[in-house]
């Protein structure tokens, strides 16, 4: 049973050291030009300008084939870049989804035309993607999605609503899971994925401010929206399988561990080297978990590199990681000095206010634990 939990005590190869230094130099150079406090919550902030700078360095789509402008590099190298950016709290939101999952899905299932048209835009930091999965009546139960597409002479006629769509308001494209046939007995049958150009008419994007007053997610309404035939992504009716393969990319990265990392950095700044045992214990405990979880995440990145399916391991990392990142501001606030700087307060505030989303986005904790239970043979 547990032998199916395939974590290996591998480390990143020495060959990634130069790359890491290069990223750190880039971070040091670019950080002063960013007009916001560092925030390691990957969807806290988004900047096309920043993503373009990153694209110019070749750090978006870095594992993709060179023929599409990709870097042809390994998942372990990508891991180095992503963890450095998240730890530094840079605004990665514009390219994050495209780089992490939309691009890989296009590479795996897209037509040659789609790949040639879209991938180079992502790689340059010029195309922002959003994920069209959840709907008003379909959250954890993704197979309840009702958004539908009918084939007509003018293309696919799409009607329905996608919800909680992060970044849709500045996204160029959405990859949407849509019903193309009735499901029948097999609830997972009859789905297809579409590559949708959000700049075409017939799509309405409404902001849904979150509890922090920020505009990150949206409601996206398709009313008699025409998607050209070329927008079908992959095989008609294969949408469920495609969307499941997408999730492995979504579930194990550094962004599932480090969302509240900047609070730890800012607490150390407040303490200025003077810690009592209580503070040291919290700092030590959180750091121990970062170090341990990071090595689990690296092991998953290696599985991706080897072409294995790390769905179970990725779910374990995400479950542990997101619960951890939620605990982080809770523990740190209790050991903060009475008087703290505005910088610390703002960093803590952002983490506390966004923490509820950490164990919801990308599959709730309960869904992930269900996936793990299945992997253990319990269901």
């Amino acid at each position, binding site marked *: *049973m*547990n032998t199916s*939990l395939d*974590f290996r*005590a591998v*480390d990143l190869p020495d060959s990634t050291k130069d790359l*890491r230094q290069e990223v750190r130099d880039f971070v040091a150079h670019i950080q002063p030009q960013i007009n916001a406090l560092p925030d390691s919550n990957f969807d806290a902030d988004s900047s096309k300008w920043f993503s373009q700078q990153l694209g110019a360095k070749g750090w978006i789509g870095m594992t993709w084939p060179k023929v599409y402008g990709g870097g042809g590099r390994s998942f372990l190298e990508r891991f180095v870049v992503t*963890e*450095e950016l998240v*730890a*530094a709290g840079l605004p990665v939101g514009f390219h994050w989804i495209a780089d992490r999952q939309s691009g890989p899905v296009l590479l795996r299932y897209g037509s040659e035309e789609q790949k040639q048209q879209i991938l180079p835009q992502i790689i340059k930091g010029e195309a922002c993607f959003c994920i069209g999965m959840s709907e008003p009546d379909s959250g954890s139960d993704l197979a309840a999605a009702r958004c539908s597409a009918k084939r007509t002479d003018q293309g696919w006629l799409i009607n329905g609503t996608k919800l909680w769509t992060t970044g849709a308001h500045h996204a160029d494209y959405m990859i949407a899971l849509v019903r193309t046939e009735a499901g029948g007995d097999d609830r997972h049958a009859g789905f297809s994925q579409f590559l949708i150009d959000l700049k075409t008419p017939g799509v309405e994007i409404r902001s849904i401010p979150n509890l922090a007053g920020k505009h990150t997610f949206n409601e996206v309404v398709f009313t008699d929206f025409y998607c050209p035939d070329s927008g079908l992504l992959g095989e008609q009716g294969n949408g469920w399988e495609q969307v499941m393969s997408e999730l492995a990319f979504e579930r194990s990265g550094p962004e599932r561990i480090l969302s509240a990392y900047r609070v*730890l*950095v*800012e607490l*150390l*700044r407040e*303490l200025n*080297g003077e*810690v009592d*045992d209580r*503070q*040291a*214990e*919290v*700092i*030590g*405990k959180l*750091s*121990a*978990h*970062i*170090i*341990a*979880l*990071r*090595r*689990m995440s690296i*092991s998953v990145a290696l599985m991706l590199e080897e072409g294995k399916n790390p769905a179970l*391991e990725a779910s*374990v990392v995400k*479950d*542990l990681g997101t619960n951890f990142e939620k605990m982080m501001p809770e523990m740190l606030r209790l050991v903060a000095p009475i008087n703290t700087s505005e910088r610390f307060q703002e960093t803590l505030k952002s983490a506390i206010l966004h923490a509820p989303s950490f164990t919801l986005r990308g599959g709730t904790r*309960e869904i*992930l*634990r*269900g996936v*793990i*239970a299945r*992997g*253990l*043979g*319990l*269901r």
Partner: protein
Amino acid sequence: MSETLELILQTADKLFSQHCNKELINQAETGQFADGLWQEVEQTGLLLAGVPEQYGGVGGEMSDFFRLLELAGKHSIPLPLADTYIARLALYEAGIDVPDGPLSFARAGAAIPFGRFSRGVVLWSEQELRYVPKISDEFVEAYNYAGEAADRVSIDSDAAVILSTQHDTQWWRGLAALSRSALMSGALEFLLDSSVNYALERKQFGRPIAKFQAIQQQLAVLAGQYSQARQATRVAALNTSSVDFIRSVAVAKSVAGEAAGIGSEIAHQVLGAMGFTYEHDLHHRSRRLWSWRDEWGNEAQWNIYLGKQLAATDPDELWQLLTA
């Protein structure tokens, strides 16, 4: 995994399965040394795993031995395998003849694991390692949570020899702490297997309790805790010659100790009253977990150690340390 390691683990698993069972572990709790099992371990040469050839070992990596300890923890082997291994290594390094039989490795002034059965004890302190070849017979017999001998004894300090070893005292403490993490990882594996099997067999409300989400969610947490403890332990075990060894031990002992508490709580909840009986073998693992998590520094102590070290750095360089 190297071929040597694979062979060692296969041999050990077979030996432990054949020669160690519930009755033997229970017997050990009544003060009987599991001599037969000890002889098997010695004859098979298991304690030579990862010991450099210059000391008569089989070579390989030191991490090989920690993998072996995972199995010992999984099977609740009632022998001082970790202590004997570490004490012998200290004697090898100091160029002192190693006596036959089990040895203890203990913090000076603290209880001596398996003391009454030991042929000698290596005493650890911040300053030095001392070897006491003959322990007095004046024991105050005591036991850890698992009923393993953890005796108090007055040491004749005149008979003690200061060991001059290649490694410093922090390294030796790290080795001892890591041995407990490895034992805990193995015991957690047993807990996971045992709880999953029980949940699939035990029926309530007309179906196996494994079908209830409340149980599934708990076991998923246990799987995560076990995975994390094992990963941190194996990473540290590969780090014994690194300058960052003690830091990785702090991580391993902290997360494994935490997993011991969370994991045993879940396993006992899933196994219900059955798991609370002396009859069931769950307690052989859970009671050892409760002892091991406290031995050689509990989670809080290692967290404080790590936290003090990290807090002393420039906050903007913290990330560099965490990724070192």
